[in-house]
């Protein structure tokens, strides 16, 4: 990539909806995962009945850190999922009625920094989904993770309106 070329780009353009709220959630892995098993997202029940407009994944990259390597949650220290493990997980988002919204989506597709060189920042994709977290799940394609347990997977959600 040429040094002096900078594309005339901005973080937020006119096509991007104006987010009113966003929140960072962590999914926790405390035991050695098993490939092919569904791990339901039983925590973070706030992610339901909201129309999600953006989803972001953050990983730890030792080459060019852009997210902390460890996170403390409720007195417990967790290791951020390393970027090398992000291609081993797929995710399925499900709505309140049990209908899948995104089926078997590669987790890395949500990564803000998808490359090891960290020289490309992907803007948040534009979603319009009403995710219900307790029915949504991760599946490990490959359970041989580099990241040591316990692991936290940070994901940011953006939403605009709440259902009553």
């Amino acid at each position, binding site marked *: 990539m040429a040094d002096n070329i900078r594309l005339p780009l901005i973080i937020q353009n006119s096509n991007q909806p104006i987010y009113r709220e966003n929140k960072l959630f962590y999914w926790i892995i405390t035991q050695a995962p098993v*490939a092919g098993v569904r791990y339901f997202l039983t925590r973070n029940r706030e992610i339901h009945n909201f129309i999600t407009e953006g989803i972001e994944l953050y990983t730890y990259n030792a080459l060019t850190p852009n997210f902390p390597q460890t996170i403390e949650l409720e007195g417990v220290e967790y290791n951020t999922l390393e970027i090398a493990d992000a*291609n081993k997980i797929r995710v399925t988002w499900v709505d309140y009625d049990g209908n899948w919204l995104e089926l078997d989506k590669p987790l890395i597709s949500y990564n803000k920094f998808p490359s090891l060189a960290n020289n490309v920042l992907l803007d948040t994709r534009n979603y319009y989904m009403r995710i219900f977290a307790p029915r949504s799940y991760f599946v490990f394609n490959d359970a041989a993770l580099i990241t040591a347990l316990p692991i936290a997977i940070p994901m940011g959600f953006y939403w605009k309106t709440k259902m009553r």
Partner: protein
Amino acid sequence: MTANKQVNNLPYTLTQLPGNNNIYLPRNDISIYRSYTVEVPLNNVGVGAKNQFLLNEFLQSEATGSVIYTGVEVWTDTQQSVTASQRTVVTATDAAKLAITLKWGQKEIIYLQPYIGWVSLINFGMIRRLDQLQFSLSDSFVQVLQGGIIGAKSALFTFYFKPVTRGR
């Protein structure tokens, strides 16, 4: 050199690599309602071989034209190492040997599209937008244009779609 930047209330720390500029890209203005990830097992890797999508109940129901496609992207092993059926996803080198044909009935809507061109995460994250097309994935295939693909591998697609009958 690092810079802290607040974007959308989430902190980012950007590291300026020597000789490189960080690049911010605008999103596709595609709105994702639903998506489906499906593999194409490369059971035949001979030159000219056509490999079909792995059939499942969703493919069989959508073959009746109940969905319209708004976007598509494909993956290599860098983005997802193994498929749900435990086949290795094609490497970037393998991807350069593949081409995609998507059909609607007997008509070829997408014909011999180079697979590598739809790998979004090496194309600045851009999802290929489709102008509300319909496909018969059961008739579509991935064609091998060059030999040298070794091992039991699969091509992997994510299709973005919305139902025909509803406005969303």
